[in-house]
């Protein structure tokens, strides 16, 4: 049987694409075949899903993200983007944006939705549970500790001062992410208008983000149908 990727493998080594490296007869040199087999074994070990991303790694990543989510769930957004897309490259930026639409478009806490989705994408149902648990656990721990010490902790001027410094920084960070995403994704006048309308609907008219997403979904579908890019 031909390996699925032999065409690419051949191209990389300058062999004609039609030749099957697993068939020793059609090759002049036997060692090509041997090195191919060795390479395939190596690759299969390297790209084994269990080796690529371990469940524990997912838990640890989301635990870290959850512990630095200061000032509400939206702060998790740049943290997740940095950890999962930029640093580790587990998912692409486009896929991240798709998952973000889903996370915002479903009821429940947005941060939990997002981490669940990413876990699901990386490791199936097990990954979803681990990612969800990882992002929730720090907040559970800190709340229990705070509840035992109770609110005396929050009257200490140190903590208040820390938040007075950290919160504006967080706002700046999210604004930076908006700038980066906007530069990549808002290029035409139409898309700018689209984004502005959505923003105004949510901030000025206080319309629920889920409703805005559903409206946007319907609008986009209608536009695609009208412009005849799809036939159904």
């Amino acid at each position, binding site marked *: 049987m031909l390996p699925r990727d032999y065409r690419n493998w051949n191209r990389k080594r300058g062999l004609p694409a039609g030749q099957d490296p697993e068939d020793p007869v059609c090759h002049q040199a036997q060692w090509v075949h041997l090195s191919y087999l060795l390479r395939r074994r190596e690759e299969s070990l390297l790209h084994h899903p269990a080796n690529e991303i371990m469940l524990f790694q997912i838990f640890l990543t989301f635990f870290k993200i959850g512990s630095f989510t200061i000032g509400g769930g939206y702060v998790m957004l740049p943290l997740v983007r940095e950890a999962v897309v930029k640093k580790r490259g587990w998912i692409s930026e486009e896929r991240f944006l798709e998952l973000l639409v*889903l996370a915002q478009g479903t009821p429940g806490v947005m941060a939990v939705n997002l981490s669940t*989705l990413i876990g699901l994408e990386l490791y199936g149902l097990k990954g979803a549970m681990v990612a969800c648990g990882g992002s929730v656990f720090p907040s559970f721990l800190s709340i229990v500790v705070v509840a035992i010490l109770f609110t005396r902790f929050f009257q200490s001027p140190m903590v208040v001062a820390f938040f007075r410094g950290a919160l504006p920084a967080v706002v700046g960070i999210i604004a930076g992410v908006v700038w980066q995403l906007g530069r990549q994704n808002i290029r035409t006048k139409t898309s700018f208008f689209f984004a502005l309308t959505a923003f105004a609907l949510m901030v000025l008219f206080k319309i629920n983000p889920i409703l805005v997403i559903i409206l946007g979904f319907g609008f986009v579908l209608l536009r695609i149908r009208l412009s005849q890019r799809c036939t159904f």
Partner: protein
Amino acid sequence: MYLLKLFFAFFKIGLFAFGGGYATLPLIAREIVINHAWLTPQDFSHLITVAEMTPGPIGINSATFAGYLTGGLLGAATATLGVCLPSLLIIYLLYRLLAYFAKKEEKLIKEIFKDLRPVVVALVATAVYLVGRGAFKDYGAWLIAGISFGLVCYYNEFSIIPIILTFGMVGILLY
């Protein structure tokens, strides 16, 4: 029996929290404070401060804290689980459904999500507004926000967590 009741109360809250963590607050007020009277209104005002000032999403924090006040450690665990479970279920079903449609209409789904990207940017922009409402009390705050904005935009190698911690320390030194 008591824990079961607590679990279902928070399950309901998680299920109907349309619009992120802040949407859980009025639901908790209605369900836990008014309907079941497990918490007093004074507890609830404590809850908001605590939920906003501890790390983690507001929705999870407030649920855990309310669970702890009503049922101790076990209550906290029950409430957290109850709030998370609806999300997990809905997300799993939706993901499977979307994967099924993506197989049938791959081009269409890709196109829709591509066209929806401006809306996503707008959604993230609303987060700036939501978090920023309570953050700017003086000019120093604007300066800090401006510096971190610049760092994120123009220096890719800066990671986010050190920025947050540094400006927290700056806050301690300044105020």
